[in-house]
């Protein structure tokens, strides 16, 4: 992956084990979000392979990625401001419905589908303690709440792999601990694999099964949190070269 002359991702290779929480960490500009955008097909990779459960993701258009079970959140929020909180999650459940233009206009199968999508979305909102906000417009809610809403929207597509882009960004310390807890529980409850980009090291180290460290688009270390924490390359990347 390149932007002009800059190589943003360079020979990066790793695997997220099924049911694992894998954290992708590295200094700003290391290429973590670029990596997400390649996987969700928002960026076209120059070469390389991304496979999910044996399927080549790079051969699919962006809207098919959710359909095969890969969902994501956005670092800087990409919600639908005109829709209510519940409707945002219902859009997330788009792949779980089938009513298209014709059927919708003629009201064929709409009622039952709406009922089902609304119930599913509501239960996800309850799960993330957003139930009381369901009928509020998404616009105007606090940042931390909207981050959780992004999480809920991603869950609504019944993913098997969830990409979380800085979920702890903008949260208070107490909230971060709670979020770490929630991520683990949700992983178990929905049998997910999770790939996480996060700067909040305490949370990364406490919830991850594996950690991949990137710098300048390359992988510089990989392993369990304990291994990575003591890796000299990682310490150098984060703290600068030893004097």
């Amino acid at each position, binding site marked *: 992956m390149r932007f002009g002359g800059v190589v943003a991702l360079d020979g990066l290779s790793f695997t997220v084990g099924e049911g694992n929480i894998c954290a992708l960490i590295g200094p700003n500009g290391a290429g973590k979000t670029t990596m997400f955008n390649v996987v*969700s097909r*928002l960026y076209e990779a120059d070469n390389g392979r991304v496979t999910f459960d044996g399927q080549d993701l790079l051969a699919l*258009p*962006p*809207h*098919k*990625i*959710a*359909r095969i079970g890969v*969902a*994501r959140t*956005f*670092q*800087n*929020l*990409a*919600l*639908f*401001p*005109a*829709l*209510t909180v519940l*409707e945002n999650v*219902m*859009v*997330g459940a*788009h*792949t779980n*419905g089938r*009513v*298209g*233009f014709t*059927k*919708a*206009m*003629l*009201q064929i199968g*709409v009622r039952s*589908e*709406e009922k089902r*999508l*609304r119930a599913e979305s509501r239960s996800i909102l309850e799960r993330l303690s957003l139930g*009381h906000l*369901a*009928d*509020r*417009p*998404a*616009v*105007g*809610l*606090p*940042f931390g*709440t*909207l981050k959780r809403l992004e999480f809920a*929207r*991603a869950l*609504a*597509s019944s993913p098997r792999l969830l990409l979380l882009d800085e979920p702890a960004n903008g949260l208070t310390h107490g909230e971060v601990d709670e979020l770490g807890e929630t991520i683990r529980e949700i992983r178990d409850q929905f049998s997910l694999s999770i790939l996480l980009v996060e700067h909040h090291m305490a949370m990364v180290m406490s919830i991850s099964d594996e950690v991949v460290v990137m710098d300048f688009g390359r992988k510089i270390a990989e392993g369990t949190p304990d291994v990575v924490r003591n890796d000299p390359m990682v310490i150098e990347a984060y703290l600068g070269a030893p004097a």
Partner: protein
Amino acid sequence: MTAPTADAVPTIGSIAPRPAVPWVRIAVGIVVTIIAIRLPYYYSPETNQIFSKVLYLAIAAMGLNLLTGFNGQVSIGHGAFFGVGAFTSAILVVNHGWYLEATIPVAAVLAALLGVLVGFPALRVKGLYLALITLGLAVLFPSVVKKYVHGPGGIPLLRPSRLEVQSLISSIPDDIYQYYVCLGVLVLTFLLAANLMRSRTGRAIIAVRDQEVAASTVGVDVARVKVLTFALSAAYAGVAGSLSVLIERSADASNPLIYFQDSIEFLIAVVIGGAATITGPLLGAMLLVAIQKRTEGTDALAPALLGGALIAVVYVLPEGIVGGYRRAVVWARRRRGMGSSGDDPPASASAPEPPSSDPDLPAAPTPSPT
């Protein structure tokens, strides 16, 4: 479309789950229905023609609203689709002896096909550029017609005779019959649009407007939604064009800017009625025609008066009539809440309008595009 700011009426474009219908709404519905049915019997044929014009204008505006209001694709070329509908019907009636009523579906299909043709290149351009391209379409259309349609005297004008558009029900006078045809088609098209917007696909249409990238990552086929919305929107304009032949007894492309003017009228109806609302286009069409009729006959001043009136309306009601109404409801509810706490319904209850954002919440950043 830009993201609404926090202090805007927060529900533009939001289609809340069908609210529990309070008796007030049922009563209003019955009264409106009776008025709509009885109305033409109290007015002259000339006035009924104006009522009919409001109705077909509203259908075209609804079509444009689906595209521009709900889906965020700006078109100032919908007059071209309107023209396709008008000439399809006029040619079939005048040259092939069809009943005008039977030409309406044909007009819809042909306009939709042209909509698909325009919808694909529209995927590559946005905002002002799309507006310009569609504008070109409306300006181009009359010259195309001129080349292929030769009415009396060689001008691109087709006039069905009175017999060709007369009432098919002998007990109902022509003007009232034509009004009823328009009313029937209006009710049908508005129901279809309301159904669409209350479904998964309706949410996808709005999601594509608000956050195209996020919509695609949750599995919305953005290109498909945009092109189909374009086609549907064009079909509405085509149907309206077809009805215009019934009412005006002509399809006329002799004025090269006529369909551009129509495009602008549709856009005005959408904006003053309330973009991305279901009833807005109808209310907008009513108000627009009312202003036009009030300012008519003052000769040179008419366009200036119309313009001035429009500025005033947009200034007073920046979100259109429906947006203004919602604002008023929210304001009234808040006042009542302050005056006597207790009888104010909870914000999330089955209120007819979705609740507003709470002023007590800390100011939060508006969700912004990545």
